[in-house]
């Protein structure tokens, strides 16, 4: 019950916040569209970072193909909206326009995520039996294959990109899904299944010897992670209203890896921190013009030398604030 109430409050705050920030709530108060865009894109990065951390951080599998699944989510959801948007809106004619748009967005995102999940499965099953560097190269390859494949489909714009996507996503939707991603990933991690993932990271042979079906665990986490990347892609497309495969190269995959490494592999709050920090740095350093990337790279090098485990390492943010321990009743002793 408490969870439900919190969720509703969270959603309300987001949508009110969105109205406030875009100037629709308090007359005369709004933030610059640039600022709002940076914050919104940060939200998309959060979804990408947290979902990738499930594979790279918690399961210890080195995947560099995340942008490929984001691309699938982006293009499939954009196509659903473009090709079937009117029909879907028509079918929901009895609802007010905002609800029609919301439903359309959810349907498009859902289908995009499902396609990304299928792709995750097809890529994951053959690749996840490979170790370390080999998996990295294979996922890198698949990411590029997906991108080039999409690039050659004229129906979604090909080399001109896909334009004319309706702006169905906004700050509120993006952070709604960011919150959902964080919630789902943290529930997965704090479960028996999540323990098998960490066990695989620590010692895959021992995990297998303890009865864990390691292939199944790895593939499932890979599929879930890809689906989330697909959601991020869909939100990206419906926020910027235009996508091009150039946004989904391996460089994008590397960017997400940088985010989770800075934040701390194996820490969900770390990924959030890393995603936010990444955008703050890339935008904040714009004032240095041509020295931006030099400074950025130097900063990364310094962070990796001074704190190689990332800002939060394996820990979550709240573990730095010790809570009073609840005294729990001791279970009855078992004879022996």
């Amino acid at each position: 019950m408490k969870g439900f109430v919190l969720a509703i409050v969270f959603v309300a705050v987001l949508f009110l916040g969105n109205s406030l920030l875009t100037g629709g709530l308090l007359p005369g108060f709004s933030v610059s569209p640039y600022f709002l865009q940076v914050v919104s894109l940060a939200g998309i990065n959060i979804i990408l970072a947290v979902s990738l951390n499930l594979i790279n951080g918690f399961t210890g599998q080195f995947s560099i193909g995340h942008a490929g699944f984001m691309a699938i989510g982006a293009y499939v959801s954009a196509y659903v909206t473009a090709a079937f948007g009117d029909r879907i809106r028509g079918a929901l004619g009895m609802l007010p326009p905002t609800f029609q748009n919301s439903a359309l967005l959810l349907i498009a995102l859902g289908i995009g995520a499902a396609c990304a999940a299928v792709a995750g499965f097809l890529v994951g099953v053959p690749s996840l039996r490979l170790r370390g560097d080999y998996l990295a190269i294979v996922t890198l390859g698949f990411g590029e294959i997906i991108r080039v494949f999409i690039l050659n489909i004229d129906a979604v714009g090909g080399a001109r990109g896909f334009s004319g996507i309706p702006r169905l996503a906004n700050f509120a939707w993006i952070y709604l899904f960011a919150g959902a991603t964080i919630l789902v990933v943290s529930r997965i991690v704090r479960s028996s299944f999540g323990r098998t993932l960490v066990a695989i990271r620590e010692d895959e042979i021992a995990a297998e010897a303890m009865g864990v079906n390691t292939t199944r665990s790895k593939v499932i986490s890979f599929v879930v992670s890809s689906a989330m990347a697909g959601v991020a892609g869909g939100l990206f497309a419906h926020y910027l209203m235009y996508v091009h495969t150039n946004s989904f190269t391996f460089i994008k995959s590397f960017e997400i890896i940088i985010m989770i490494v800075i934040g701390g592999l194996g820490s969900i709050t770390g990924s959030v921190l890393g995603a936010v920090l990444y955008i703050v740095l890339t935008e904040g350093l714009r004032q240095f013009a041509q020295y931006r990337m030099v400074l950025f790279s130097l900063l990364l090098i310094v962070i990796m030398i001074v704190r190689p485990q990332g800002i939060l390492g394996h820990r979550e943010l709240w573990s730095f604030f010790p809570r009073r321990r609840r005294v729990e009743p001791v279970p009855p002793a078992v004879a022996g």
Partner: protein
Amino acid sequence: MRFGGLVAVNDLDLSIEPGQLYGLIGPNGAGKTTVFNVITGVYRPTSGEISFKGQPIVGERSGKITRRGIARTFQNIRLFGEMTVLENVKVASHCRQTADLASAVFRTPAHHSEEKRVDLQSRDLLKIFHLEQFADEKAKNLPYGSQRRLEIARAMATLPRLLLLDEPAAGMNPQEARQLMELIRWVRDRFGMGILLVEHNMKVVMGVCETVHVLDYGATIAVGPPAEIQRNPKVIEAYLGGA
């Protein structure tokens, strides 16, 4: 079991009854750990059959074999270092759980009750192995003897019918080894599983095992109760020297 030109284990005829304490000894390089690895599916035997509870298990993945009921410990400890002691044991009980990932994501009542059950069972297991005080400690921080016990506790969490212990007494002082012997006997009496023990510590082997199987250069040179084995001239020549 042949690795290229090297025959690691040759003509092995070994059977273990339910609840039997079976020891496997032999000089270093005799093929004992290879036997373990073949039984648990880490290696696929180049010839021969293995059956467990009447079912052939050759060629199955080690995870599947563990789920059938054969658990093992490792000679060089392979704990999940960054996980706590309690979590190490909980991972091993995953294969005996029924609640799935969906129930974890939606935090259903089934998920909560299963988590509680696993928590209690795992803590009980820790108590049996005198590890409950380390429950929230990272496994890599434990003293060596405790890590060895945790290896066994973890294997037990898979609820095996056959437990394979790979040199559990390695690095233990005489007092720890004696406690280990009592623990092994107690575990067999309480849970009734068969135990296959590979060990160099002769006191432990002769004191715990009901049947001892001696290997030398991959071949069986004697099988029998400890008293017989200790008197067997071939065994003395190959291995015991003066036990």
